[in-house]
């Protein structure tokens, strides 16, 4: 059955040419450093720290986000940092296609592969790498530098391997991500209707 449609306030969201839907209530620092793949939804109060980058001038890709992604309400996307050879520095982050990030989740990963679903209230530690087809349950804390192999379910604090996902996860996750985008529809205000009539 077709799932319920999620209506959003049309005035709150900006829709880009490539179909990205970005809430005006989100905080996107230095958007020039952020690349969005298209058809990605960024919900309200989401914070994306494009300003945290390696020292240097001009723009660079600090955060790359693929297509059909969802950054849930109040989530924080922050590039990872470390001290290497005595120098403190931020490193870029890559989020691939079909990645859903839950509400109030903090992501400081180095890389998130395709078809990953991260639950609500999670912390994805610095430089962690999540491979393709993974699921992070709600309230999980992934320690820094963790590598999560494909087809894994992780949960708990600290996040541990819980179970394996079936091979068909790709299809399910892809459908889920696409359907969510299709269900995310602008609610046309009644006033608008009246004026157009």
């Amino acid at each position, binding site marked *: *059955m*077709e799932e319920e449609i999620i209506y959003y306030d049309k005035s709150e969201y900006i829709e880009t040419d490539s179909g990205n839907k970005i809430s005006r209530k989100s905080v996107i620092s230095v958007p020039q450093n952020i690349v969005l793949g298209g058809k990605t939804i960024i919900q309200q109060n989401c914070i994306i720290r494009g300003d945290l980058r390696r020292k240097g001038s001009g723009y660079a890709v600090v955060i790359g986000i693929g297509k059909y992604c969802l950054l849930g309400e109040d989530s924080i996307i922050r590039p990872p940092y470390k*001290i*290497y*050879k*005595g120098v403190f520095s931020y490193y870029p982050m890559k989020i691939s296609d079909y990645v859903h990030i839950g509400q109030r989740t903090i992501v400081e990963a180095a890389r998130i*592969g395709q078809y990953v679903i991260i639950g609500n209230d999670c912390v994805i*530690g610095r430089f962690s790498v999540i*491979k*393709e*087809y993974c699921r992070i349950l709600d309230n999980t804390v992934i*320690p*820094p*530098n*963790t*590598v*999560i*192999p*494909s*087809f*894994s379910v992780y949960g708990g604090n*600290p996040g*541990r*391997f819980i179970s394996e996902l*079936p*091979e*068909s996860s790709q*299809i*399910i996750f892809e459908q889920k991500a696409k359907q969510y985008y299709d269900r995310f529809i602008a609610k046309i205000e009644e006033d608008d209707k009246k004026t157009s009539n």
Partner: protein
Amino acid sequence: MEHLNKNNNKNNIPFPYVYYQCTCQVVSKIRRDIFFSTNQFPLKEPVESEINSTTISHFPPTHFNHYRLKSIYNLYFCPSCCEIHCPDCVKNDFLCFYCPNCLFDVPQASVVSEQNRCIRNCFECPVCFNVLTVVSQKDVLPTSASTSSITDEQNSYYLACNVCQWKSLEIDLSFDKSTGLYLQLQKKESVLPHEVEFQNLRNYYDKCLRSNSNMNSINTKRLSALFGNSSSLLISPSIISHIPDLKTKLILAKRENNQKSDEYNKTNDNQDSTILMEDELEMIRLKNLENMEELTSLEQKLNQPEDQPKFLSHLRIHRIPLRVKLQTKCNKCEKILIKQEIQKMKKPSNIRFAIKCFARDYIPNIFIQQLIPNKPLYKDMPVQVLLKFVNPLSQEIQVSLTTLPNKQNENENKSKPKIDTDIKKSAPKSPMSPIFGRRTSSLMASPKARKRGPSLKISTAPIIPTKIKEEQYKKSEGVSSCNVTVLAKNFKIPAYDPLKEFENETEPTEQKQVGIFEKKKNSVSIVVEVRPTGNVNDRVEFPILVTYSFVNDQKEVDNETPISPNYAELSHGVQKFVSFWTVIGIGKIVEENIDNNKDNKNKENKNKKK
């Protein structure tokens, strides 16, 4: 009423759903039937040829095994057997071993020699079991004059846990280089008592093996006499004779034992005394313990089974255990159903499937498109369910649907369920028209049928079960809570054409068949009318038998293309039938006059209080 509630508890699949019954359910039901008719153990396996669309039609899913139903995404389809398989009825094989942390593929040969653990720089924290990271001493020290004085040669590395802040320095472990840690660690580990003991034993038996080479000719009778009632009692001589390697080893072990037993026991004696001393020291330490935090937890002890240390300071770091990738095979014909592509000695990070036989690429995909009206379900208020059938095959398929007979009248039904014995007796010959021959109902049938006595020929005549079975089924029977009417029982679904996927919908000009809501590309939506007849809170769910058939019209069977389903056994122009049962659940019956669930729940609670 009691059993009804039980069934409801068991079956709590959230609504709405379309679930499928795997073929193995039919197999197990046939086995059970054979048992009930013969009362013989071991359970007889049904003959392979007996599993066809006709037999499947006899075994609708009952409420007893709803929890065994699967979503289409969890099912496989074997193209050579033309059968649905689920995770419970496939075989799994090791495909490759890999480290979950560095993701490197480990060759099978070194998996055994390296104790199933990663041989690179992957270690787990002995305290909290998370991954340890290499830290350079130089980076940690505050940037002061002392840091700059440390040259790279003087620098040392240690392992630290990001979670519990444990450092390998706590067990006096540091490394000179940041790479090849396992090799550096191996030297330190090789002097540990259990490692020494293992090496001693290994050397000892190696020596035994080497010193004997002409013992192979010994005959098994003498061998059994030799072993008589001493060691290896459990190994029968005939087995020994079949394993030449084992035979020599046993002989050698026996002989060497007699000759050199003193030599080896001596070292054991020494070790025993040291262990005793250590035990005493440990007791003293435990008695004087001031801080409980020095002690290990049970989990930590079990993670180090060789010595199960009592103190945190005795924990050692362990390499990360390997994980395995499996491949999935048909349990009947051994055809590989799922196999990932593996590039040897490379990071198996990019997942691609070399072979994938998911059921969704072979059998009609069924979705609940819509409920009309989309409102809560009331008793006796018919709703229309739009079921969408999607054909994933590149051939046109003919679909035929069968439902269980509806209750004519509720009172009549309660006393005597409606049975269609005549149809049952004349077992359907063409799977295209799977006449409803539900054996479950036939159990309550006329005494005539029962008198015919047990029969094992499943494919021709259904077994007549004993009374035990009858009672079982009666219980499951009572739960049917709706009448189902399908108008379009036979329809065709056009082939799936990937080229047309992005084309616009073209409304077909052909006239509409009764009961068909719409046709789109490779899908057909039909109308199913459902009238809930049960009580408030009953689940409205009903089984449908789906039989689909297609003609293999591919002139050349191309074995090389894994994309298009390839029915290898089918020659050109042969029609093939495949059947499976689905269960469609649309919701629970709610009490009338109440429009939303909240009110309903409140009411429920009130009722309970009363």
